[in-house]
């Protein structure tokens, strides 16, 4: 018997769920058409009126929303609610250094807390749980998202945030933490620190972990479970939609249930943009049907996966998404931070004398993501003095790090070292086994 937070909604028969979805979709389309100039214009251009949405099948008539739209309408242009109804903002980094902003009304915070509480329950948490939230608190949705959900469930919630591993481990032991929320790479890092700090599994009371914000492999899951003595669940989300808690694995861990009464999923062919049926691999698209702050129509996540509609043994009727197997754009997720190669490129080229030849190398060393950039420098910039080159190197490292908000190591190489390819250059080498 599975553990639910809102049993009725989570196990609602498909027919009733779809009725609810349609009702919410119709209300939403009317709402954004009236409140958000961006959508009003887009729908007029597409020749769609809110009254044209008569069935869930009519969803495909609605225009798509992209990350570019969010950037173009920075900071408040995508909001349907006026700022006096917005109670919070979160943001993630975008390609141009401009933030991608998400605004939440009190209603949205409630929706988010609820879907996160459901997610915790699906991982067998309850008000008996002692939850250590080691996602970062701040503009990133991870920390506060998990925090509000854990509190909503009634669990004892520790706002540990990320970093300070020594203290995290001390709290695991002293507070008898049962539940860990963090990125999977940080979980593995903590597991290794555990050994170094002299803790053994018998010191810990961990039962489960909700890990997400970056892609991870089954091998990592096995390692995390073994080293921390817990059951590791995948949690999925993105700030544009709400944050963590868009979908969660149940105890059967065969895909993640999407909370479909709030987030209406579709899979589309990223080339033709045509909707694809269940079981087909394509790009995941969401329409947020209960948010009021910044509701989005058909938001293209760029995440590639497929949807599973077969009933799940856990009793939840909400469809599952398979593991995200890649992206339909070139975004990298490094240590939980979104990075676009174009950001790195413009930071590199802002300095004169840098050859157009560079290669971004992402690796996972001791379970932490590392970013290295190999750069060929022109003869004119090359100096016979070590200190000049070291200054150049640290200047470049500074420029790139501040553009992408994560630390980076620059490595100078001779001309011709980076393999020239015919056609599209190989700019990114991702050595992580995900």
């Amino acid at each position, binding site marked *: 018997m599975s553990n639910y937070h809102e049993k009725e909604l989570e196990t609602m028969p498909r027919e009733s769920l779809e009725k609810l979805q349609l009702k919410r979709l119709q209300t939403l389309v009317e709402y954004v058409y009236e409140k958000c100039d961006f959508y009003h214009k887009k729908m007029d251009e597409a020749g769609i009126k809110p009254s044209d949405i008569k069935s869930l099948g009519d969803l495909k008539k609605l225009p798509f929303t992209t990350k570019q739209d969010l950037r173009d309408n920075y900071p408040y242009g995508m909001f349907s609610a006026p700022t006096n109804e917005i109670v919070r903002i979160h943001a993630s980094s975008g390609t141009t250094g401009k933030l991608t902003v998400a605004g939440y009304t009190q209603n949205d915070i409630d929706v988010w807390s609820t879907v996160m509480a459901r997610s915790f329950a699906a991982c067998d948490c309850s008000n008996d749980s002692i939850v250590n939230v080691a996602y970062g608190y701040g503009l990133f949705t991870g920390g506060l998202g998990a925090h509000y959900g854990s509190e909503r469930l009634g669990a004892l919630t520790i706002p540990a945030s990320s970093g300070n591993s020594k203290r995290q481990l001390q709290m695991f032991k002293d507070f008898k933490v049962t539940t860990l929320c963090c990125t999977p790479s940080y979980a593995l890092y903590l597991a290794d620190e555990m050994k170094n700090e002299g803790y053994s599994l018998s010191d810990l009371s961990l039962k489960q972990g909700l890990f997400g914000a970056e892609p991870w492999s089954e091998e990592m899951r096995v390692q995390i479970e073994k080293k921390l003595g817990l059951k590791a669940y995948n949690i999925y989300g993105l700030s544009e939609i709400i944050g963590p808690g868009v979908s969660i694995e149940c105890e059967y861990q065969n895909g993640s249930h999407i909370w479909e009464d709030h987030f209406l999923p579709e899979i589309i062919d990223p080339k033709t943009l045509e909707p694809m049926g269940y079981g087909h691999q394509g790009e995941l698209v969401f329409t947020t049907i209960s948010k009021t702050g910044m509701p989005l129509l058909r938001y293209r996540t760029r995440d590639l996966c497929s949807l599973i509609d077969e009933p799940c043994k856990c009793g939840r009727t909400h469809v599952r998404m398979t593991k995200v197997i890649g992206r339909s754009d070139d975004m990298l997720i490094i240590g939980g931070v979104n990075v676009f190669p174009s950001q790195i490129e413009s930071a590199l080229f802002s300095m004169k004398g840098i050859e157009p030849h560079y290669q971004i190398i992402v690796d996972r060393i001791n379970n932490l993501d590392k970013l290295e950039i190999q750069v060929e420098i022109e*003869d004119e910039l090359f100096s016979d*003095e070590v200190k000049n080159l070291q200054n150049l190197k640290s200047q470049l490292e500074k420029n790139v790090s501040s553009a992408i908000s994560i630390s980076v190591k620059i490595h100078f190489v001779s001309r011709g070292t980076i393999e020239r390819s015919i056609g599209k250059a190989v700019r990114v080498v991702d050595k992580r086994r995900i």
Partner: protein
Amino acid sequence: MVKQISVLIETKPGQAYKPIKVLGEAGVDICAVSIGDASDFGILRLIARDCDKAVNVLKAEGFTVNLTDLIGAVVQNEPGGLSSLLAVFEEEKISIEYFYSFISRKHEEAIMFFKVEEASAALDKLKKHKVVLVETF
């Protein structure tokens, strides 16, 4: 002035060998070599008898190369020889970035190469002190 050729190398096995091998195969005579070393890259500095040829060969092979003016000065190959030369630098307040040596074919003298700030001004000062300067070998 003496032209020094600098070549960017990575700190990995075989990295210094590559440019030296290329020059050897092209029949370039290398007079002096020095290495500047950082944590993850190095600078191979060379003085070749035929500098233009050496640069062309290295560039053709794709090496990152640049040229620097050094001061070449003769030192007597005897105790105190280098000391009396450096005394002039000290007296004239010429600041040295780095220097290295080359044993001349004449046994009684060695040649030192100096990288200094403002090389031409330094050269004039050294001439005043009758330091024996060299430009070719």
